[in-house]
């Protein structure tokens, strides 16, 4: 018998991210990351802001019982500010692009690693990438948190890798 004859079995159903994690959990992961990496008095205000035209994203892939990507997106200026804050006294007078790629990528690594650990495992984590955000493949397999850091908008998006299954 083939799958189509038996109908869809429950074990074939892939969980969508909203069944596995929620916004407050992502918020809490981000807050811990900011407290430790950016500064202990840093606050992420859970309010949406309008992202500027010129944005940059950093992301890591999670491969496991749930497969997808954890994406951070913010304005280029904010990413530079984050880099400076992260490096603290080690920040050079002039920030290079590669400083920003490195720092913003590392923040994705820290947030992504902790999101992964809150999901059913075991899962593997990719190295971070920086650039234009990967597209959302399935709007139903998406959990997103929008925050303001020092008044500037930043979004953290946990998005599934696979498109929605066609509905018969």
């Amino acid at each position, binding site marked *: 018998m083939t799958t189509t004859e038996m109908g869809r079995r429950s074990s074939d159903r892939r969980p969508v991210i909203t069944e596995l994690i929620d916004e407050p*959990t992502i918020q809490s992961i981000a807050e*811990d990351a900011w*407290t*430790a990496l950016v500064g*202990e*008095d840093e606050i992420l205000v859970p309010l949406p802001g309008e992202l500027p035209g010129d944005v940059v994203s950093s992301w890591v892939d999670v491969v496991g019982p749930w497969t997808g990507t954890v994406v951070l997106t913010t304005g280029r200026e904010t990413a530079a500010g984050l880099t400076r804050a992260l490096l603290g006294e080690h920040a050079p007078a002039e920030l290079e692009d590669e400083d920003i790629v490195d720092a913003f990528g590392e923040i994705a690594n820290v947030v992504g690693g*902790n999101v992964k*650990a*809150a999901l059913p495992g075991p899962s593997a984590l990719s190295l971070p990438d920086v650039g234009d955000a990967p597209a959302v493949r399935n709007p139903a397999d998406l959990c997103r948190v929008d925050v303001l850091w020092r008044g500037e908008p930043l979004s953290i998006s946990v998005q599934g890798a696979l498109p929605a299954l066609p509905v018969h």
Partner: protein
Amino acid sequence: MTLTTTSFDWVRELVHRESAIVLQPGKEYLVEARLLPIARQLGITDVSQYVESVRTRPSPDSTRQIVEALTTNETSWFRDGDPFTALTATVLPSLLAARGPNERLQIWSAACSSGQEPYTIAMLLEDALPNASSRVSITATDLSREMVERTKAGRFSQLEVNRGLPAAMLVRHFTRAGTEWEVAAPLRRMVTASECNLATALPRMGPFDVVYLRNVLIYFDLPTKQAILRRVRDLMRPDGWLFLGAAETTLGVDDSWERVVVGRSSAYRPLKGA
């Protein structure tokens, strides 16, 4: 208004005296950020004003609030190390030899805060004794109801479990609960948490074989320290062991204790006939 030099210096001295922690110059912003919420709760908008009000009329509660606000990050597992390694290396073997096989050992964590201390003790005993939960009871008390609830829950954030907890113990004694780590059920069963104000008459508890009374006496004046030590001794076995904070001693406070070197730490034992 920013913190005045006088206020900052007084706070630095207070924190160092009470907790042995050094606040470096340049950390005024940290003091302001941590004390502002407390000041606001009291209806004071200026941190210097708040600090001055405590400095001119200090009380155990108000000074403790300031010290805690600035040192809460210091809540860690196995704080100072030696008083805990001493438990399994010296104290436990001594007690097991002195007690009958069916006697339950009783340990008191007398300022348990969010639970790191009583669970540090629980983990050590679990690793040292077969059937630890049937051999030992750990009483955890704190002045704060919130802290008692946290201790009961036995859940800690990732940032909290990073603080001085050996990784091998983390994986052995905790399970993940979302983004948090939860102490394993057998250890939670070993610990009973309740509210207790050391500065007043104590409820019937114990008698305790071991007491951890760490970094609490420092908040009190001499007569209260003496009263607390007396009350604690009344709840202890005559051959019991008392551990104080790294910067604390009974010397000059209460001479009815014998100081004993245990490993690289000190413990205090009730003096016979005192």
